[in-house]
């Protein structure tokens, strides 16, 4: 016989219960009746803040939340339960309906806690929990807009929810003040050190933080609100949002005599049963194991337990992981395990890097052998690999584990046992995922998601899923994109061997579809490396990224920057004056770059040819600041002037820059020449760097500044100039042939099989017998070089592409405007920048 389960509350957890029950109740043992207080089906409350992006409530609705086509579920929206009669086993609703039940599940969630501040009920005071709350906040902001200046708001509470609210307010164009009683932000998740850094990072984003104080009183003041803080600060505000914590909604349970905790919450046992065996409570209204869980994952776990119990199972809720990883206003915050070192004898290992803006702490057992928890602020990349290690032996010294991400310290997934939880949102272990890969043939991340649900909630475990695929021997595709199954290196060989000269022929014969923003520029670069004329000739123009297409660098407001080549950084006063005159005449912002040359910013598309006409006439060429090509060969002043110099570093730098200018490669190429071992040109930070010796030159390769600095490795030493140039020719051409798309020489050198020794074998000892070919290719480049900008100026067809509007050439783009800063023009910011929430 069919029994009836009544679910009170259609929030995230209530919905998960109905889904789990309907998924598993094959026999149709239960009919489900849901009563919802809110007037809409369950929605993604976790993503509530994203509602301000588009005000589209339908987007937040949870999948399948209307139970369309399922006759076993009746969903009554906007009809809350007002009383429970346990003796009669029936509930009464606001509309007067009386619904009998065999089992009752309370999933009423929680309500925002509003501290008893005088004035808290004034118009303009809000809470932050439902879609309707956000609509009301929006109305207040809009009212504030009619006033003068930027609106301002106070958020009471600096925890997770308070910072979410501050983000929403900032996205709405209001300056938020965050008031937090505790001495730091996110007191539940992070410790003092992490909180201090978090405050610094958040304050950079135009949010004012008031820690260690509270709102003492709120008054209406000429249509606005005046808030007095306990520390004496007064804030003049348009609106106030309370998000100072939550209180479980347990009134129904209290009224019918179920057990509730001293500080609220409906008492449940491991089966999620209340003190009445016919009544369950799940989600944020439940007090399980003495605590209320304010996160969705534990609520989901409780829903699964109750679904199992209703079908006669014996599942238990045994507490949940309170680990969190978030991106708040672009700032990474993660805490896991015993983040506050509450365990007896726990030790803390902290790396606080004020310069990098990162704070990393591990909590370990008193013998420093077991990981207990941790806090990461500023960079939470290692969260995914560290969290599963909680409660397990440390695979390395705590200090080594905290080394900056990518510094070699990080833990590989291989070190984890099968029981380690990889996805904490959905409680999926390493063993489950390996099972899916090995037994269910899940050979990519989407398939793992489908088989195990791992990675389907917050997404922070996805990098680990990729590592697990690799460790199970599943070969990760080298395909460039959906249009080519080949790697870049393979495509290079195809183009070289077949002599194909157009993208359309290549994609027709060796790929599929029409191409995209990944394969088109990659193929354009290959065609250019192999010498196929001007990069804007015919079809090639449409393959190029905007920088290459307009031979200039795109700026944030849609204008471009112009960088003339200044080989070796040496420049005559006359040429300096020519640049200065162009900058003055076109009103361009001017800056000395980090590459020993000059950048002119703020040119519109249609100004570029006129600017370059002047520069070319003054003897300048393109500097390729826009291209994946040779950028600069920096120099130090060298033996001509410097009292320590042993060789003419400027002369060599100029020679090398002129030789390799215009050379297209998988990524940009940088170089430098220093006149002695003092290394003033920083040659060892370059893709190929040269340092003078008493008897010749040392060549270093694979250096990198930027995101992940790497010192270059010595390839050959004390060679004469002719040998030096020959080795560089071969080295560069070998790299261009075999590297991946957007792979700098540093990464290529570290990933190529055999590493530096192999590269030395090929380019010095010619172990592959291709040296001659590599040299011939470079010779072709050197003789074939022509200045790209001169090429455009000489060709009316190419020039015609540099127009603002096809139907109004020369008409200025109305969105572009400038303001003055320190005597130069800079762009007026466009709109509010996009901020990511997680």
């Amino acid at each position, binding site marked *: 016989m069919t029994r009836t389960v009544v679910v009170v509350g259609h929030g995230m957890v209530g919905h998960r219960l109905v889904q789990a029950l309907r998924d598993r109740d094959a026999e149709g043992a239960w009919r489900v009746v849901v009563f919802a207080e809110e007037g809409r089906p369950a929605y993604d409350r976790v993503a509530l803040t994203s509602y301000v*992006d588009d005000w589209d409530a339908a*987007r937040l609705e949870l999948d399948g939340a209307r139970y369309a086509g399922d006759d076993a579920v009746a969903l009554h929206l906007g009809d809350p339960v007002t009383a429970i009669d346990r003796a009669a086993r029936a509930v009464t609703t606001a509309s007067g309906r009386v619904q009998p039940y065999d089992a009752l599940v309370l999933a009423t969630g929680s309500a925002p806690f509003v501290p008893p501040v005088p004035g808290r009920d004034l118009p303009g005071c809000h809470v932050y929990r439902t879609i309707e709350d956000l609509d009301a906040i929006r109305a207040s902001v809009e009212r504030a807009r009619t006033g003068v200046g930027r609106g301002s708001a106070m958020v009471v509470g600096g925890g997770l929810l308070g910072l979410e609210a501050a983000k929403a307010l900032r996205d709405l164009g209001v300056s938020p003040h965050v008031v937090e009683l505790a001495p730091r932000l996110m007191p539940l998740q992070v410790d003092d050190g992490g909180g201090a850094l978090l405050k610094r990072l958040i304050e950079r984003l135009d949010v004012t933080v008031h820690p260690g104080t509270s709102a003492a009183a709120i008054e209406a003041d000429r249509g606005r609100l005046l808030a007095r803080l306990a520390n004496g600060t007064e804030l003049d505000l348009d609106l106030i949002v309370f998000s100072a914590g939550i209180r479980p909604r347990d009134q129904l349970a209290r009224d019918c005599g179920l057990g509730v905790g001293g500080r609220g919450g409906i008492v449940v046992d491991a089966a999620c049963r209340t003190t009445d065996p016919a009544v369950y409570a799940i989600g944020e209204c439940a007090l399980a194991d003495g605590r209320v869980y304010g996160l969705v994952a534990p609520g989901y776990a409780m829903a699964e337990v109750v679904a199992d119990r209703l079908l006669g199972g014996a599942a238990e809720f045994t507490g949940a992981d309170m680990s969190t990883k978030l991106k708040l206003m672009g700032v990474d915050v993660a805490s896991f395990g015993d983040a506050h070192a509450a365990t007896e004898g726990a030790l803390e290992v902290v790396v606080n890097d004020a310069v990098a803006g990162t704070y990393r702490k591990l909590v370990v057992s008193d013998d420093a052998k077991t990981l207990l928890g941790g806090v990461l602020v500023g960079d939470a990349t290692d969260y995914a690999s560290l969290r599963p290690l909680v409660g397990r032996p440390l695979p390395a010294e705590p200090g080594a584990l905290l080394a900056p991400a990518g510094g070699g310290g990080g833990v590989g997934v291989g070190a984890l046992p099968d029981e380690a939880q990889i996805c904490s949102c959905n409680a999926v272990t390493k063993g489950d995922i390996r099972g899916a890969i090995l037994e269910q043939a899940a050979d990519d991340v989407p398939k793992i998601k489908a088989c195990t649900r791992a990675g389907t909630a917050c997404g922070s475990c996805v990098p680990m899923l990729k590592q697990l695929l690799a460790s199970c021997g599943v070969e990760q595709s080298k395909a460039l994109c*959906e249009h080519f199954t080949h790697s870049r290196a393979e495509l290079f060989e195809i183009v070289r061997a077949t002599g194909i000269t157009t993208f359309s022929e290549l994609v027709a014969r060796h790929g599929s579809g029409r*191409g995209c923003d990944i394969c088109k520029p990659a193929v354009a670069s290959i065609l250019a490396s192999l010498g196929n004329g001007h990069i804007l000739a015919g079809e090639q123009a449409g393959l190029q990224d905007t920088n290459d297409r*307009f031979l200039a660098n795109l700026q944030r407001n849609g204008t471009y920057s112009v960088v003339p080549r200044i080989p070796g950084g040496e420049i005559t006063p006359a040429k300096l004056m020519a640049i200065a005159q162009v900058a003055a005449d076109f009103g361009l912002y001017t800056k000395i770059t980090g590459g020993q040359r000059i950048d002119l910013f703020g040119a519109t598309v249609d100004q570029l040819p006129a600017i370059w006409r002047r520069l070319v006439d003054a003897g300048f060429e393109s500097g390729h600041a826009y291209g994946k090509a040779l950028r600069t060969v920096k120099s130090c002043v060298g033996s001509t002037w410097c009292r320590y110099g042993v060789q003419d570093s400027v002369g060599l730098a100029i020679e090398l820059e002129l030789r390799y200018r215009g050379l297209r490669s998988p990524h940009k190429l940088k170089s430098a020449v220093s006149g002695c071992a003092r290394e003033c040109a920083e040659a060892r930070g370059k893709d190929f760097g040269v340092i003078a010796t008493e008897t010749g030159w040392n060549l270093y390769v694979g250096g990198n500044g930027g995101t992940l600095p790497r010192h270059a490795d010595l390839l050959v030493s004390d060679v004469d100039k002719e040998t030096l140039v020959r080795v560089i020719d071969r080295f560069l051409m070998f790299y261009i042939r075999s590297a991946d798309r957007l792979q700098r020489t540093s990464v290529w050198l570290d990933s190529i099989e055999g590493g530096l020794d192999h590269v030395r074998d090929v380019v010095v000892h010619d172990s592959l017998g291709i040296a001659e070919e590599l040299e011939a290719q470079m010779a072709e480049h050197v003789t074939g070089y022509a200045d790209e900008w001169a090429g455009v100026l000489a060709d009316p067809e190419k020039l015609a592409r540099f127009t603002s*509007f096809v*139907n109004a050439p020369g008409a200025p*783009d*109305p969105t572009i405007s400038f303001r003055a800063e320190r005597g130069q023009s800079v762009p007026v910011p466009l*709109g509010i920048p996009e901020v990511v929430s997680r």
Partner: protein
Amino acid sequence: MTSTVPAPAWTAVCPLSAIEPETGVAALLPDGTQVAVFRTRDAVYALGNIDPFSQAAVLARGIVGDLRGTPVVASPMHKQRFDLRTGECLDDQGVSVPTYPVRVVGGTIQLGRP
């Protein structure tokens, strides 16, 4: 006194041949709106030129291609892709740019009012 002159329903923009296949150009409408007009191998599309992520008027300068058969343009600013037919962003659900009616009459591209 004010009077309303009905705007013509279609504005001629440029000859079809002015757009290289698989690229786009920007056009300025009389009211100051900027439209990105794209020509693929077999069709012409028109979207708002403003990239909603950066607010810069640059979509016409993006790379045209396809994503599992859907014709798309990738914003040159930060590479989000937009469906050329509907204006919807395929990388960020819920974000979209306006689309404009577009047709080719006698070799000339014409834009309609949205």
